[in-house]
């Protein structure tokens, strides 16, 4: 197996407990909120039934329950986002700091150093997407649990797209349209690559590097945002047509992406210091 994939595996392996814990936290929060919510609703109905034996109860659908406990669903998602965001930095800095500096070993591996960069990038993306996939799996499991604890005659069927629509975070993180998924995560990957390169700038030039890195990030953000703001995407009398403005922005993104990756590779192979 080639060394890049071995490095990816190594990075995943190092994070396995954290990733597992994030999944665990998500599962515990969501499933307990679900069971608690369903039970409290059912017991409330039972109370009512005791007092008014004639009452009829409405049906319960999974997506309505998910909607009513959005908050408890979102919390572990936010925790995961926070942890992963932090790890974007830690995945590099943990190799420099501490009692032993693994970066010595990594840089001395008989393989192109860009593999280290790509492996860390792949690892972060693997974590992100595995949490996304886990959430999807969890929703299937949660629906099964829901079907088990709610009496069959009270279950109103609900469609999977309704469950996604029931939670604000799902709508953003697992959008219904695939092209939006590609677009959002593409933008995320670009941001990730820019941050990686900024980290490598700092690692290469240290104190002065912090200034360079901040400047680099600023320039990147500005280069993307400025044409959107200045070319009048929302003005009907803008000289350029919207599709042209987006074309320009896409072009800029492609250039930034290529430049960031190239700079990252170059710093790693020529400038980096342990």
């Amino acid at each position, binding site marked *: 197996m080639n060394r890049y994939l071995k490095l990816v595996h190594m990075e995943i392996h190092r994070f396995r407990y954290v990733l597992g814990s994030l999944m665990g936290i998500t599962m515990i929060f969501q499933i307990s909120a679900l069971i608690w919510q369903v039970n409290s609703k059912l017991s409330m109905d039972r109370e009512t039934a005791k007092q008014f034996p004639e009452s009829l109860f409405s049906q319960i659908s999974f997506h309505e329950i998910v909607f009513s406990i959005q908050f408890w669903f979102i919390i572990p998602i936010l925790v995961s986002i926070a942890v992963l965001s932090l790890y974007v930095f830690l995945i590099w800095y943990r190799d420099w700091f501490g009692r032993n500096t693994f970066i010595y070993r990594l840089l001395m591996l008989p393989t192109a150093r860009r593999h280290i960069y790509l492996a860390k990038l792949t690892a972060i993306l693997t974590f992100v997407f595995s949490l996304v*996939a886990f959430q999807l799996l969890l929703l299937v499991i949660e629906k099964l649990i829901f079907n088990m604890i709610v009496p069959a005659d009270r279950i109103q069927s609900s469609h*999977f797209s309704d469950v996604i629509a*029931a939670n604000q975070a799902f709508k953003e993180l697992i959008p219904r349209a695939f092209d939006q998924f590609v677009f959002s995560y593409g933008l995320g990957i670009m941001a990730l690559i820019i941050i990686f390169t900024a980290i490598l700038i700092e690692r290469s030039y240290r104190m002065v590097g912090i200034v360079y890195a901040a400047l680099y990030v600023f320039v990147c953000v500005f280069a993307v945002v400025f044409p959107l703001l200045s070319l009048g995407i929302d003005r*009907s009398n803008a000289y350029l047509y919207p599709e042209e403005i987006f074309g320009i922005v896409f072009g800029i993104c492609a250039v930034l992406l290529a430049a960031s990756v190239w700079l990252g590779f170059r710093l790693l192979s020529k400038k980096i210091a342990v």
Partner: protein
Amino acid sequence: MKRYLLSVILGVFIVVGIGAYYVNGAMDRLPEYKLSTLEGNPDEAQMVKLSGSYGGRMLWESLTVDTDGSIYRKDRSEFAKSLFNNQSWKFRDSDMKALKKEHRNFMRGKGLMDSFYKDEEWLIYAEGIVHRNNNSMLDANLKIDLLNEKTGNVTQYRVDISDEANYSWIDILDVQRVDDQIHLLVRQHVEASSELHDYVVDLKSGQLIRNEMLNHGIRSGENEELNLFAITNEIRSKPGEFVVLSVRKDRRTKESSNSYRLDSVSEDLFSYSYKTGKLNELLIYKNKNKLEDDSNDFTLNGNILSNLRNNTNAITLSRYDLSLDQKLEGITSLSAQQLGADDIGSLRLSQNRVYVLLRKDSIPQLAVLDTATGTVLYKGQATYEGPASNSEEQMKNLRLLNIDVQS
């Protein structure tokens, strides 16, 4: 390989999980509907799209239904939608779309629909520009771009229309061409009031030939204000001899120290002929509409001014020929029942057709009427494309609210 199991599992998990979600999403088909002919000529409904939503899910799903079937918004690309949504109002109109396609460079930066004029020879765009000059007076200019469609030559004129009145801003309401003269209908604002002018510019030289103020003769009293509007030719890419001006008088009633209420007092319509320069009050509409309900809609199509109203579930269309100065045949109180339905949802007048969205037993129907006679040329209704056993339930989930006619 066994050592790498964790990574392999995660990789497969990601691909299968996210893949299954999107495959499942793409295969998630919402019910299909179609506009089916009940009677008449199906060609009449060819250009019509009915839009509304499907309510069988937790969130309403927007869709359009036409004679070919139905299209849900979710199935159109979300991303492309948001990408080209900006400015879309500008190019939604099929006229504008065609112009953009044909004259991409000339159309750049030109955003105001009413500022365009088009015929077989010329494409003209005018813009009013007001800026403060060195003497801190306001300079008013008309910027006119002309495209000769035969040669492709672009000419630009700039006409100074500043005078002592010191206009604070100017709007172009209409642009027309009469032989070698360009007519620009301009609304100019001076302090709290506004005026309408017809500026006539020589097509060949760009010189201002004359400046005609359109004197409608209506004065505003104390605590009253006049609002001027223009009803221009329905199809922007077709020349028209006339424009209809609407002068609405509003009364201000002070409600508190810093807010007041406006009530419409009267509304008068005038026709103006660019060719003759004649301003003619349309007495048949004098103060008429304000007594009736609000849902009235004037449309100018060539020489014919139409007024379409939905009054207590009945359609009334009055038509007036501006060049002959006489009333034409129209439709009088055609009720939903007469059209074989329970109620009228919405109306749309386009060219010489009236499109009526009806509901019968809460099922949407479409009727296409001839403007002159009120004859039903087409009638159709939304149908569910699927097993008949679900039909009744699925029809309950369909709500259609708007008519869009692609001319």
